[in-house]
């Protein structure tokens, strides 16, 4: 971590003459980025990508990262709230998984305690079956869920996560309870994919990018995605198939609690301008992330709705 800071500082020093010329563009001299997860994960990746683009554009002088991982972000969140209250130039990168973890872990500190700034990316879920499965399309899968949910084992990530929630919502849509699910939780994407490839389970649910290459290679058959619009050309969304579910693993930026209106607007302006940069668009494309930018009141409203939907499913599954 120390090495990163030194790198950033050196880069800032080298850029100093440039910055003076474009002083109008610089929003923050230094910015503290708090990641409530270990290095290398999705939230960390988004934070480092923002650093990369913002520093090259001269929007921020230098960045300092702090990673505090554990329990879907509920270990780091209280620390961010306590340490950065009311301070400018500090952000936290988090997302959908934290909403679920706060509820499931009954954490006293929640997303309500930080200042929502913007949603940056989102990744739709995808439902797949092994290539040699009897199930040919979404209808076949829905029928199997309706008639024999116990015999339709579905692999995914840890219980109560996005994959489990999507399965719960699907079961509800066919008039079953989320409790009927035959959900097989795996630690991490590798073992879950292996179980699907080896046809140990009937189907699998995960984030779209995790299965994309297996689908391309013809080793898994995609049945549907859970986004607003299609992520893969010839794979329907749940919505257009007549199942009213839209669910994505979104990631976004939060400010510390207790920010005044001016400080909050400054952060919103910063991420809005960052999002408008051509370099950001390029980076999204290279990483394969879907742009899901949403800020201000619209993001607030989205958060409320997301929390309510998550709470309902988790309650039904028996997690809260």
């Amino acid at each position, binding site marked *: 971590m120390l090495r990163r800071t030194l790198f950033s500082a050196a880069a800032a020093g080298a850029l100093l003459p440039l910055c003076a010329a474009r002083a109008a563009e610089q929003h923050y001299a230094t910015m503290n980025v708090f990641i409530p997860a270990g290095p290398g994960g999705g939230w960390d990746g988004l934070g480092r990508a923002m650093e990369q683009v913002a520093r090259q554009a001269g929007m921020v002088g230098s960045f300092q990262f702090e990673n505090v991982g554990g329990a879907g972000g509920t270990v780091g969140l209280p620390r961010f709230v306590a340490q950065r209250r009311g301070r400018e130039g500090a952000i936290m990168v988090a997302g959908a998984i934290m909403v679920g973890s706060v509820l499931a872990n009954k954490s006293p500190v929640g997303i309500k305690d930080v200042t929502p700034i913007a949603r940056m990316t989102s990744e739709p879920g995808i439902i797949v079956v092994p290539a040699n499965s009897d199930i040919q399309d979404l209808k076949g899968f829905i029928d199997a869920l309706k008639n024999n949910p116990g015999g339709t084992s579905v692999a995914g990530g840890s219980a109560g996560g996005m994959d489990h929630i999507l399965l719960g919502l699907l079961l509800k849509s066919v008039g079953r309870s989320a409790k009927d699910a035959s959900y097989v939780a795996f630690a991490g994407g590798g073992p879950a994919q292996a*179980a699907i490839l080896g046809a140990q*389970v009937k189907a699998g649910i995960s984030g779209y990018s995790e299965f994309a290459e297996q689908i391309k*290679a013809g080793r898994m058959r995609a049945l549907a995605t859970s986004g607003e619009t299609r992520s893969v050309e010839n794979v329907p969304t749940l919505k257009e198939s007549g199942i009213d579910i839209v669910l994505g693993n979104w990631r976004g930026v939060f400010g510390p609690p207790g920010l005044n209106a001016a400080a909050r607007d400054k952060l919103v302006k910063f991420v809005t301008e960052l999002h408008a940069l051509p370099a950001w668009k390029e980076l999204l494309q290279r990483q394969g992330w879907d742009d899901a930018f949403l800020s201000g009141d619209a993001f607030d409203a989205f958060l409320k709705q997301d929390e309510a939907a998550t709470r309902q499913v988790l309650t039904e599954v028996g*997690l809260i």
Partner: protein
Amino acid sequence: MDVWSGLALGFGNALTITNLGWALLGCFLGTAIGVLPGIGPALTIALLLPITFQVSATGAFILFCGVFYGAMYGGSTTSILLNTPGESGSIITALEGAKMAKNGRAGPALVTAAIGSFVAGTVGTLGISFIGPVVVELALKLGPAEYFSLMVLCFATVSAVLGGSALRGLASLGLGLLIGLVGIDLQTGQPRLTFGVPELLDGIDVVLVAVALFAVGETLYLAWTHVGGKQEVREVGRLMMSKQDLKRSVGPWWRGSLLGFPFGVMPAGGTEMPTMLSYYAERKLVRPEHRHEFGTTGAIEGVAGPEAANNAAAAGVLVPMLTLGLPTSATAAIMLSAFQSYGIQPGPLLFTSQADLVWTLIASLYIANIMLVVLNLPLVGLWARILKIPQPQLYAGILVFATIGTYGISNSVVDLLLLYGIGIIAMFMRRFDFPTAPVVIGMILGPMAEQAMRQALTISQGDWTTFITRPVSLCILLIAVLALAGPRLWGLVVRNRADTAPTA
């Protein structure tokens, strides 16, 4: 592209000055972080990820692979010298390795670990090049039921480390299983034994427990029983292996390598299980005249086998990543995200779409392996000199080392409290002759076995016969029964013969 032209292309790319430089830097960094307890290759590569914005893909992956292999080499050093395993794959190495160091045989232990790592790394890399895709397809046929049976087999091997009293050994194993339960249950999302402490929700790190049990516990015990006045400086002994050491190591190197590679390839395998099986096998296969060294003065077979198994498994982990795009370990997952930041989507098509990169990477694994053994053998003398430090200073150093390592990674006071809490428990365990190794084994195997069993039962809709109706699972269970009952039955036969012999 066939394997030979692929390798030719790969070596052509890897043998440039810049790429060799990246490999050397990676090996050096890897060895260093392998020596530090707690910091593993996954965390190091994660911290190095931002270089992917600046460096070419080939250079970055050569660096990462160097770090990965280097960490496997370095991990054994502290296990042997200080009884402080740097990562979970070298926990078993500490069992015999630390005893050898205590008895003036640190040099041979380090050398057999380094050469064993080289042999296993080469076997593993050959495996990646030639049979990787075939083995991974076979591994996909294994489901949770088979994995559960494999864990049962590993549990059978615990008997090798139970020590003199089965009751004490099983009590230690139970403590390990209990610690393994802490955290959020994967299948239901419910917290268990966390007592409202959020830091416990992700469970307790097995390396932390191993360091607490082996290093902190030992240090506290020594401080407790230390008799003032007498200062003993440990023998370093001869550094190189004798001819006999070499003869005793060759078998374990090969067996460990061949055992480790398939476990690494298995999507739910990992590096710990093969080290346990290798240790068990070597303990059973050792020539009778050396058997007494196990658990007393330290047997070189018990270092050579598990170290080779650990390194071959680490190479195997790269197979599902390269052939199918499956991240089956934390390190592989982070390497996959590095692929993505170059716009490369790793998957079943990687070998064809990125043949250049993949073969360069494989070639650099061979190079890293040679670099590491050249780098590590001369270091043996330097490392072994650590033992010349007088005991009070040495153990104080270990304590500082363990504390910084634990706190530096997680920034968590809870982890420090756990380190010393479990360390104090370990001190009393030593005092009352409870073995500590079964605790770690229970902690590694317990949660894996539990999850595999419940996954299998969810898939079979609660039908327990799934473990014996699936042929592979049944075979593994039969081997486990044989491993448990076989030696006893054999003993009975031998005794009967002995009884009947005089009368005949």
